[in-house]
């Protein structure tokens, strides 16, 4: 079915790196050469055989911290994405199928949430709430679910207007059959690619918050926080901060490439040329 040769190079690269990052995140304790908080060398030690990426602002092994950081970043971003997706998609589908007052109230509230830039709203909320992992996941998940809601609702409204859904209604099918058998299979491809985009958004948002010192708090560390820890080295020509920053970029690009490929692949399956 899935012919490896037919996957474009970009998507293949994306798949490879996404898998690599996931592997690092899951098996962090097994592959990290040192522990996360152990001071093993000089401050900002250079790249060496012992420390493949050098050491950080306190003399901890940067590679080990990167591997553990992958865990924190991917874990929080994945949970926030899952939250935004279940919340947004369920509300969006319901709004499209149920319609009426429910649709209006939810849609207007989403409009309101989206009229404030996400980062600004996040900052306002975090000025009161403590920066715990749960808070972060909730804030990111809810803010990000507005976009999923809009997409899910739009797609479901589109599909709902198709004649084949009318055929099912005229046949006497129930709401469950209509949502799960008629609408969902046709709404999946834009939603799956949106899943990738929401994950990237979560990674970038979390990293930005941590970089600003408002995300994951020490001694825990994610990639954004590691940029913050090491940023003062930059002016002395020490590129340690660039390594976690590059990792964030690489993860985001990889997932983007995969999402892009999923989108073109599934749309072409539909048989429509446009």
């Amino acid at each position, binding site marked *: 079915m899935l012919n490896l040769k*037919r996957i474009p190079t970009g998507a293949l690269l994306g798949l490879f790196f996404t898998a690599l990052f996931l592997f690092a995140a899951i098996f962090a304790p097994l592959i990290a050469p040192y522990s996360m908080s152990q001071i093993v060398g000089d401050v900002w030690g250079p790249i060496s055989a012992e420390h493949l990426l050098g050491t950080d602002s306190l003399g901890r092994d940067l590679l080990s911290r990167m591997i553990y950081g992958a865990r924190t970043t991917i874990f929080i971003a994945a949970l926030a994405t899952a939250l935004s997706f279940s919340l947004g998609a369920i509300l969006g589908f319901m709004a499209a199928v149920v319609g009426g007052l429910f649709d209006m109230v939810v849609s207007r509230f989403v409009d309101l949430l989206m009229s404030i830039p996400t980062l600004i709203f996040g900052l306002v909320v975090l000025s009161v709430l403590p920066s715990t992992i749960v808070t972060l996941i909730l804030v990111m998940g809810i803010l990000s679910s507005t976009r999923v809601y809009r997409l899910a609702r739009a797609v479901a409204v589109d599909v709902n207007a*198709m*004649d*084949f859904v*009318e*055929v099912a*209604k*005229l*046949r*006497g*099918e129930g709401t469950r059959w209509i949502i799960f*058998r*008629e609408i969902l*299979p*046709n709404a999946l491809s834009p939603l799956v690619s949106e899943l990738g985009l929401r994950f990237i958004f979560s990674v970038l948002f979390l990293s930005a918050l941590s970089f600003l010192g408002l995300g994951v708090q020490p001694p825990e560390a994610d990639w954004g926080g590691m940029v913050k820890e090491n940023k003062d080295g930059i002016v002395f020509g020490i590129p340690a901060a660039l390594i976690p920053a590059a990792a964030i970029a690489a993860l985001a690009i990889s997932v983007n490439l995969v999402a892009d490929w999923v989108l*073109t*692949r599934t*749309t*072409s399956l*539909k*048989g*429509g*040329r446009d």
Partner: protein
Amino acid sequence: MAMAQAKPQRESDILLDIRDLEIKAAIYSPDEKPRDVTIVDGVSVQTKPRGESDILLDIRDLEIKATIYSPDEKPRDVTIVDGVSLTLKRGKVLGLIGESGAGKSTIGLSAMGYGRGGVRITGGEVFLNGRDILKAGVQGLRRLRGREVCYVAQSAAAAFNPAHPLMDQIVEAALMHGVASRAEAEKRAVALFKKLGLPDPDNIGKRYTHQVSGGQLQRVMTAMALCSEPDLIVFDEPTTALDVTTQIDVLAAIKDAIRDTGVAALYITHDLAVVAQVSDEIMVLRHGKMVEYGETRQIIEAPRMDYTKALVSVRSVEHEEKKPTDKPVLSVRNVTAAYPGGQIKVLQDVSVEVHPGQTLAIVGESGSGKSTLARVITGLLPPTFGSITFAGRTLPPKLADRGRNDLRELQMIYQMADVAMNPRQTVGTIIGRPLEFYFGMRGRERDARIAELLDEIEMGKGFIDRYPAELSGGQKQRVCIARALAAKPKLILCDEVTSALDPLVADGILKLLLRLQKIEDVAYLFITHDIATVRAIADSIAVMYRGEVVRYGSKTQVLTPPFDAYTDLLLSSVPEMELGWLEHAIKGRRMASAGH
């Protein structure tokens, strides 16, 4: 004292060019003083050279290819037009006819050296006014387009720029090519508006696209093409998107304009009856190749090729009219309906009956309310007044209140088979679901019945695992028919089921529906705008106009004069495969176009 010039303006284009000629003669009479009399005053004459340049357009061995991009595969080339040759003399009209994908529009545009999208002219020669325009280069083509050859599109509404008033666009080509001054061009445009029968010719040019109706825009675009006095106009399905009573007006206007201006034309359409009215010669195309090419009379009256014969005899499906029974399967009584929130009644006091095993055709143009009637019968739009009785029971007005048996016995088939099937379900699931849902059939029993149904629609069980995207247009509609039959209905609502199909395919579907009616004893409520389809399939007919039934009865009754004004207009507007029909029809009309 004569002043004549015989200097050609453009090479081989103008032989003799007399401008503003004034001739006077001195008259000497014995009683009076000699005086000058003007014999000729301000006459201009241009003649074009005869002989070889009598031929305006000469296309030789044309080959056109397009590149197809698909996400999973490498781009590949397909041949759209293969080895087509034609010649067109000055002032003559050549009709290009064929189904969708025949390459007719592509050939038409090649006369302007233009390829749409990824389309490229890869071989052959196109001579216009004696020059091969494929070798003209970008600048050469630009000088030619809008000057020597102009284009009239299928949808003038999309072809006009919404940001500018119509007049600016009409005179644009003439101005840019230096054919006329702005004042002259506008004067010419207003004269053309008059000739084309447009209302308020002096001011219509000040309007914007969205302020003018579709039928009028089509005429405005014809005026735009004629404004720079070209040698050739390419008409690309100019009346296809119009309602039938509007089509006849536009067609007559175009024909008059062609005759009076002496312009030559390539007239592209899929409707042989239409092209027979306007063209001197016809070329029949299929799959990018020429099938037959000849005089219009010969093509219509004595076609040589089988495919042409099929096209000419299309809509010849015949069907013996049945007598109404005493117990109708469906009766719609005094139904009035409006869309939620709307004040306008889309249906007003509609009463019709369908008899078991028979067909009622509902005929009308867009906006007549015929599709709304179907929505009311299915319960999707509850009527504000009136009742619907089906198989002896009065149906609840709302879909949600109807029983499963009511739903099963009343099935529906749609115009666009593409969107009437879930693209993620196989043919087996699509046909099998009603079997499961209504009869609880499972496994082998269900598969056997699906195979049976596939046989009935002449497709065979090999299609069971196919997805809709893998079927042709006609096959898709057949699967929809099988899905409706699977429910063992008493009545099927058919909403324009053949309108989106090519004529030969549509004929096949009609024949199938008639055959199935005999076998399954099912009744049809057949909604259409096409009188020929009605003749082919109906036992009784209801003519609808602006939400009301204006004429209703058995097929013979409805189609026999005397007619009411609208039915007369509708019937007389349907093009017939007969030379001279258009002039005859226009002369005999009692009511102006219904649409606008």
